[in-house]
Every structure is written in structure tokens, then in C-alpha cells.
């Protein structure tokens, strides 16, 4: 019951700030927009290139799916920064709900939205066929990724300008979905430590055990380390 109240409060905060609302609902527009761009752009591109763009649908799907937690993670990061500025975390830490309860609610809020948007984006894009269980698994990993982005953002950024800088920097992780195209062994090895690479590999290998196991491990390790750092830093209280 208590948590439901906090979810409602999250929704209120989300709608109070037009920027949060915009970022939160961009995934709804993003999937059809990409679909339109592909429908118009691919036939045009095919006139000039000899390769088939269809061979790269897995990369496109991985990119669009990863954009969801990347954006929602930033939304959460901004909400956490707002709460930090408004001393809300300080206030909640002395209530029975506590600081950890606050973090759990925030993280679950982003996780739930990410999961819903993952299915929505996959269905709207209709680019690449994935078994339903694999899609659900990818959705779960994206939830961890979104929460991790929010925590990185929150731990590193002391103000919104820094937040903006790190949001830009965190986009670098999206490059890792392309590393298999580059054929650079050290870069592929490096990419293996980042969650984004494994999302692509799971999409590419559809149910092969190794990417699933490695993907899950990397996402959980990132999540736990970030949770530990967030807990250790006590969010400047």
C-alpha cells in the first residue's frame, strides 16, 4: 500500500515536469518514427549501396531497444537529482520507508516502464523475429540496464550540467552494439564488459546459452556494483 502511494507520487512528479513527461513518453513515438524512417530511407539507400540493409535489422532493433532504458535511466537520474536538491531523500531516510525503500521504488518504476516499452517497441518495429521468452529475457536485462544508467547518472552528477555531460558520455555504450562489425579483437573483448554488447549478442544469437549467461552476469554485476556504490556514498546525505 505504502509503495503504491510512492508510485503515485512518482507519476505525479513525472507529469509535473514537462521534460520528464516528454522523455518518458518518447519511446511511444520513437518506435513508429524509426519504422517510418526505415520504410522511407531503406529503399532510397538501397539504390546506392550493394549490401542488403535487412542484414542489419538485428543491430537496428538492438539500438532502438537500448535507447529505451538509456532515456528512462536519464529520466530517473534527473528525478533523483531533483529529489536530492529538494532534500526529499534526506527526509525519507528518517521515515520507516527509508532510503533503500525510496531507491527500490524509483528503480522498479523505471524497470516496469522499460519492460512495457520493450514489448511495445518490438511489436511496432516488427523488424526481427525473436522467441517470446528471449524477448522477455531481453526486457528483464534492459530493466537492469535502465536502473544502472539511473544510478551511474545519480552517483556521478552533482548538478544537472554534469548530468547532461554524463548522459552524453553514457551514450558511448551504445557504440558497443557495433563492435562485431569492426572486427577488432581488443574492442570486442572490451565490449564484453558492457551490458549493451550482450543485448545485441542475445538478439543475434536468439537463445544460444553463452550470450544469455554472459549477458545476465554482466547486467547483474553492473547492477550490484552500482547499488553498492550508491549505498556506500549515501547520496550526499
Amino acid at each position, binding site marked *: 500500500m505504502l509503495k503504491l502511494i510512492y508510485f503515485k507520487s512518482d507519476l505525479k512528479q513525472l507529469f509535473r*515536469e*514537462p*521534460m*520528464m513527461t*516528454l*522523455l518518458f513518453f518518447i519511446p511511444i513515438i520513437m518506435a513508429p518514427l524509426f519504422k517510418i524512417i526505415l520504410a522511407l530511407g531503406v529503399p*532510397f539507400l538501397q539504390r546506392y549501396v550493394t549490401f542488403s540493409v535487412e542484414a542489419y535489422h538485428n543491430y537496428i532493433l538492438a539500438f532502438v531497444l537500448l535507447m529505451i532504458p538509456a532515456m528512462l535511466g536519464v529520466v530517473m537520474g*534527473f528525478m533523483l537529482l531533483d529529489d536530492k536538491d529538494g532534500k526529499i531523500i534526506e527526509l525519507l531516510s528518517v521515515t520507516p520507508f527509508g532510503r533503500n525503500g525510496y531507491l527500490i521504488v524509483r528503480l522498479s518504476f523505471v524497470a516496469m516502464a522499460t519492460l512495457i516499452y520493450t514489448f511495445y517497441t518490438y511489436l511496432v518495429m516488427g523488424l526481427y523475429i525473436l522467441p517470446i521468452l528471449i524477448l522477455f529475457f531481453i526486457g528483464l536485462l534492459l530493466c537492469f540496464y535502465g536502473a544502472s544508467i539511473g544510478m551511474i547518472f545519480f552517483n556521478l552528477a552533482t*548538478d*544537472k*550540467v*554534469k548530468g*547532461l*555531460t*554524463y548522459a*552524453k*558520455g553514457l551514450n*558511448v555504450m551504445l*557504440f558497443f552494439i*557495433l563492435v562485431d*562489425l*569492426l*572486427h*577488432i579483437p581488443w*574492442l570486442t573483448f572490451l565490449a564484453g564488459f558492457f551490458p549493451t554488447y550482450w543485448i545485441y549478442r542475445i538478439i543475434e544469437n536468439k537463445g544460444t546459452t553463452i550470450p544469455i549467461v554472459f549477458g545476465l552476469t554482466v547486467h547483474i554485476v553492473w547492477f550490484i556494483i552500482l547499488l553498492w556504490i550508491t549505498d556506500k556514498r549515501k547520496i550526499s546525505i
Partner: protein
Amino acid sequence: MTSHKPRTTGAQGQRLLSALKADVLFQFKQGFYFVYLILSLFYLIIFHQLDNTWLSYVMPVVLFMDPSVLGLFFIGGILLLEKEQGILSLIYVTPLRVWEYILSKVISLCLISLMAILFISLIAYKEAVNYVYLIIGVILTSVFFTLIGFLVATRSKSVNDFFVKIIPWMMVLILPCLLLIFYPNMQVLGLIPSIASLKLVWGAYHAINFWEFIILTLYMIVLNIFLLKYTYIVFQKKMVQEN
């Protein structure tokens, strides 16, 4: 506001230089340089895998879309953070003039754009590049987008409000560039500032006609001067006087 401040011509350059130093230091501390170094390295890795023909198309577009227009976003964050921290109110009690304040922000962000673009282009592009064209193109592009961001930030209440307002601007400015794909030779498109900017950056890699370069450069200079004056008026009126 500026009329109340003493006019010492020799000190003007010194004040601007000091403000510029402070802005560069602030941006360095905020991690702008670090983030753009990492981004540049990733661009280099990707560009290294492309052959020169592909690179001549991809590089100017990427350099235009990312490092050239970085000021559009970052200026909002910087300006509104300074507003929240009350720094803008302090301009009243310093000899720094509004002109110098605006110019310092614009130049400092332009420096990051220029550094990132030259770093990427000098390392990744092996064919001939007209660096005079590239530098002029990047400076004019960066100044234009930073001033647009400045104007939007001046009319925003908070950083969040700025982002809501800047997204439509970004779409209005960037989306017309897609027209160049379908009508690459339609000269009238150069009247759209973002297309004129893209043509200047593109021209450095594709040996743009000299007179076209001159016309686009003059057009962007006039536009930037007008925008700078307008930004000055709006900024002075809306922010400094409000404070």
C-alpha cells in the same frame, strides 16, 4: 546595465579573456572535455573501419550533427545552472559586461567543437581536406547553434524547462537537412541556416565551389551577428534585469 560601468578599452580584452578562462575551466571541471575526448576516440575507431569514399559522406554529417552543435544543449545547462546559483545576479557587481559574458560562453563552447572536430578529422581522414573551410564552417555553425540555445535558455525557467523547449527547435533546425539528400543541388536550401552550416562543413571535404563558400560564409556571419545582437537584447532584458 552596461552604461553604468566604466569604459576602459584596454581592460575589455582582459575581462573577456578572464571570463573565457573561467568558462573553459568550468567546462573542464564539468567533464565536457573528457566526454568529448572519449566520444572522439569512439568516432575514430568507427571511422578507421570505413573506406575513404564512405568516410567522405559519413564524416561531415557526423561532425556536423554532434561536435558542431554541442553548444545548443550545453549552453542551456550552463546558463540555467548559473542562474540557479545566483551567478547572473553577480554580473551587476563585476566589471564584466553582458556582451563579454555572452561572447565568453559562445567562444568557450566553440573551442570544444573545434578541438573535437580537428582531432577526429586530422587523424581519421586521409584524403585532402580544406581545413580553412572546415574551421570557418565549424566556428559559424557552433556560434549559430550556441546562440539559439542561449536564446531558448534565456526564456526558460529551469534546466528541465529548457530541454522541453529546445527539442522542437532542434527538430526545426536539423530535420530540414534531410532535404539535401533529395535535392542536393537546390541552392535556395542554403537559406535555411542549418543547411548553410552543413554545406560549409560538407564543403571542406567535397571541394565546394569558392563563391558558394563565400556566399554561405557571409550569410552565416550576417545571421550570427544579428543573432548575437538579438541575444544580447533578450538576455539583458529577460535575465539580467530580472535578477
